[in-house]
């Protein structure tokens, strides 16, 4: 049976051979035909290539449009494979071969992503190409190779949610259009990532942490072992806004670490203060309402937040959240801290309020009552054994606690965690992915931030408490740290403003450090933007007003919730500061004595008043007459004539942004005459002492 089948196949094959090549002419014909087919493969492959298919689709799409002729002409001007070649940037992009309509403004409404106009961005395609921002393989001419990663190509298209990272390759300073990138860079410092992970920037500097973790050298003066234990177990249970990560310590480990930290702490002179001896504690308990109002008057909420009954965190984020602070700090320590925080922490952002002893007692009692009975209810620790303390020390060393906190006898480890300087281009071969994970660098970074220990229970990286948007922002900031970012010629990058280490001199400088002015104000590029920039304050205000304001800061902007606190300065200190500010913080742009502070002709004042209310309608934002005006955006101007310098007002009106960059008051392109008349009018607004007291 089988042999007969073989026989018949054999005869069929030989007859086929006979038919094709039996005769020389026939053989010649067949061979020629085969050759022709082989030769046709290359042009056929080209003809049926993917990109031609998309170009045909594009042509049929535009054929039915009103502006078909224009679009077709644009298309036929650049037929075939398109390429953007930018040798300096290392860009060879053929993406526009298929994405044909990227530059066609009239295709903004097309429903297919492929043929739609590129959204408006500040750069042009011809100058930057595509892969600079979107990654992917530029020279590829098939969809698969251009967009996905292959064994030879590790850079797939960057998902849209991280695209701002690409801006960060060249732009080091924050940009208006990249809030996610700005946030991510901010978080790298705020969550202290860079304590453990070194991140060097292309200019050679390193990102600096901004979270200021407290020193633990004298921690036993400040808090109890029970609190440390609860804090280690779950920092966010104490304060939802805490940036301290959760190290997932087991109960015995948390017990041992807390034992070590308390045993290792040394007492600090002046760090604790007993209750003031003149008022016996038992006789007179401080009035909680008075404490609350002192807390309000001191504007503690400008920096510190408290979680209210509805669960909302209300207040500033410069200092730690105080919702349960009574569970944490010892009253003696708190008293000493309120008296002068610089004794315990010389570099703290907290100002040294000049509080009286009764005030300190009031605040201590008020803050001491901010407790949560559940927080420490289940924490019962027996006295620590030497073994536990030794084990605690081992854990503290192993987990790199000293990377962030100063701890007696333990040195800050160098490069405790992998350096992230070029993490955005990390080769995939060096990464161990989890099963089921997309093999791409953004997915890896995001997963690692989201749940570091999912990559192995023995890993040391702790669990941070971050919202999904924060994780994306951090991933974006890290993705911007690419090889390209580091290898670009510096001339092609947009550097950030160099950090300022401005230091005011002399006694005033010491006072400003003591009062932590830079925690809210910026001067000469150093400081925070919470409160107005004071670089040119001396040209702006009048001496008398400034001195009185420093003694007792009144309200300038009624709608603000963050206010300048009253530091209870002595006359001497207020004068010292005033003298320094008036002398040193002067703009070179004008002479502050070039215009008088009073004595303007009534006609000019009247003209200024007309301009204020009609032509310039300043009452939209400012109040001059409290009876009629309601504007709440800018500062109240009822006493501006005794507050501001006349020449400052004049120059401010001419161009607010030249006086204070970023000011929101619009530049009105005011002529000299109008500016002079308005200045004359405003300088007559001297306010009454009564009004001043009320405001």
């Amino acid at each position, binding site marked *: 049976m089988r042999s007969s089948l073989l026989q018949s196949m054999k005869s069929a094959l030989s007859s086929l051979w006979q038919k094709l090549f039996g005769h020389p002419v026939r053989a010649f014909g067949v061979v020629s035909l085969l050759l022709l087919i082989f030769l046709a493969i290359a042009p056929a492959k080209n003809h049926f290539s993917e990109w031609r298919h998309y170009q045909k689709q594009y042509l049929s799409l535009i054929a039915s449009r009103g502006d078909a002729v224009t679009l077709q002409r644009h298309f036929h001007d650049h037929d075939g494979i398109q390429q953007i070649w930018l040798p300096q940037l290392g860009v060879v992009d053929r993406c526009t071969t298929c994405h044909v309509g990227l530059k066609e403004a009239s295709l903004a409404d097309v429903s297919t992503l492929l043929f739609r106009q590129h*959204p408006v961005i500040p750069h042009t395609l011809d100058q930057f190409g595509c892969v600079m921002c979107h990654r992917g393989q530029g020279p590829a001419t098939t969809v698969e190779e251009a967009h996905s990663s292959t064994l030879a190509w590790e850079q797939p298209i960057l*998902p849209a949610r991280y695209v701002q990272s690409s801006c960060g390759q060249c732009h080091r300073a924050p940009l208006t259009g990249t809030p996610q990138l700005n946030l991510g860079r901010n978080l790298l410092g705020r969550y202290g990532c860079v304590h453990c992970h070194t991140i060097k920037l292309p200019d050679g500097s390193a990102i600096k942490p901004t979270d200021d973790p407290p020193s633990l050298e004298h921690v036993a003066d400040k808090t109890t072992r029970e609190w440390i234990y609860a804090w280690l177990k779950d920092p966010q249970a104490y304060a939802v806004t805490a940036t301290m990560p959760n190290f997932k310590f087991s109960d015995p480990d948390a017990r041992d670490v807390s034992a070590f930290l308390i045993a290792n702490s040394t007492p600090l002179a002046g760090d604790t203060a007993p209750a003031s001896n003149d008022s016996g504690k038992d006789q007179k308990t401080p009035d909680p309402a008075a404490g609350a109002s002192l807390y309000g008057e001191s504007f503690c909420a400008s920096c510190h937040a408290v979680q209210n009954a509805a669960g909302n965190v209300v207040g500033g984020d410069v200092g730690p959240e105080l919702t349960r602070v009574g569970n944490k700090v010892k009253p003696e320590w708190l008293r000493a801290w309120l008296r002068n925080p610089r004794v315990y922490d010389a570099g703290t952002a907290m100002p040294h309020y000049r509080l009286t002893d009764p005030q300190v007692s009031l605040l201590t009692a008020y803050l001491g009552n901010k407790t949560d009975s559940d927080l420490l209810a289940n924490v019962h620790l027996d006295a620590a054994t030497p073994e536990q303390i030794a084990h605690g020390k081992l854990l503290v060393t192993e987990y790199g606690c000293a990377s962030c906190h100063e701890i007696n006898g333990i040195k800050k480890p160098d490069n405790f965690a992998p350096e992230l300087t070029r993490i955005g281009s990390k080769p995939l071969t060096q990464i161990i992915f989890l099963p089921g994970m997309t093999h791409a660098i953004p997915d890896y970074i995001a997963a690692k931030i989201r749940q570091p220990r999912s990559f192995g229970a023995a890993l040391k990286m702790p669990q941070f408490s971050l919202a999904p948007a924060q994780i*994306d922002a951090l991933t974006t900031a890290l993705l911007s740290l690419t090889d390209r970012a580091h290898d670009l010629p510096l001339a092609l990058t947009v550097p950030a403003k160099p950090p300022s280490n401005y230091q005011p001199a002399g006694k005033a400088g010491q006072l400003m450090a003591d009062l932590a002015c830079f925690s809210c104000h910026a001067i000469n590029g150093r400081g925070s933007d919470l409160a107005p920039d004071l670089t040119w304050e001396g040209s702006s205000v009048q001496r008398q007003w400034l001195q009185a304001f420093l003694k007792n800061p009144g309200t300038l902007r009624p*709608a603000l919730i963050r206010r300048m606190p009253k530091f209870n300065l002595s006359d001497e200190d207020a004068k010292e500061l005033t003298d320094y500010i008036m002398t040193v913080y002067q703009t070179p742009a004008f002479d502050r004595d070039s215009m008088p502070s009073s004595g303007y002709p009534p006609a000019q004042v009247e003209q200024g008043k007309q301009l204020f209310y009609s032509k310039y*309608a300043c009452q*939209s934002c400012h109040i001059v007459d409290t009876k009629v005006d309601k504007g*709440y955006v800018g500062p109240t101007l009822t006493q501006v004539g005794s507050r501001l310098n006349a020449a400052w007002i004049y120059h401010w009106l001419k161009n607010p942004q030249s006086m204070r960059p970023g000011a929101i008051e619009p530049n009105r*392109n005011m002529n000299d005459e109008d500016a002079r008349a308005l200045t004359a009018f405003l300088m007559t607004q001297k306010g009454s002492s009564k009004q001043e007291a009320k405001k």
Partner: protein
Amino acid sequence: MMMNRRWRTLFVASIILVSAGCTHKPGIASALKPTGFGSALIESSGGKQIGATGMVLTQPLVVQVNDDQGTAVAGALVEFSGPAGVSFDPPSGLTDSSGQFSANVALGSMAGRYQLIAHTFTKAQKSVELKIEEIALGYQQEVGFQLDNKYCARCHDPESTPERVSNYDNLEVKPHPFTEGDTLNKMSDVELTAIISHGGPALNKSALMPPYGYTLGKTEIEALIAYIRLISDPPYHASGMVYAQR
């Protein structure tokens, strides 16, 4: 003839594939067994948010399943779907003890309005749908949004936040909130540019609106207008939102 048949089968197969892709049925749905059934879906929070293209919205999307009496139903199956590019984490799940289900939403890569659909079943396997709208800002609109926050919102947004008290009520002539499509959609880009650059009097409107032409540049004003057009309610139709609505 053979070829033809093969093409036809291919065509049919691709139609099935494409339509399957479009309906976006999450695969986990079958693994989840609902223990409760409601008859109505309501939006608890997370709708009408303004986010950026491709990015996760700040607030999660929370919907609630109610029964005929309007009481919350626990254990009901909720599925989210949306246009191409939108992703939900998780895309489906069962309502919790308070009848709610929440997911983090990332919008697609094109600027525009996105209509999301929440979906549940009644006991009789009848489907109940809830439409939720979110807005994604592209680069240009994002810049506009930031500028609005800095310069405009204090007067044009009647809502106060703890950080920013609204000046709206203090103004004698009330500004138009930027979402007020009934008014703003009637104004051309040229008119909007004029009023932003030269102030209210440029269009015979109140001088309480100051000119910003010497403070903001041309691209900034364009960005602001792009943003105003995108968030307008009812939607402004001259700009490209066709994709997102499909």
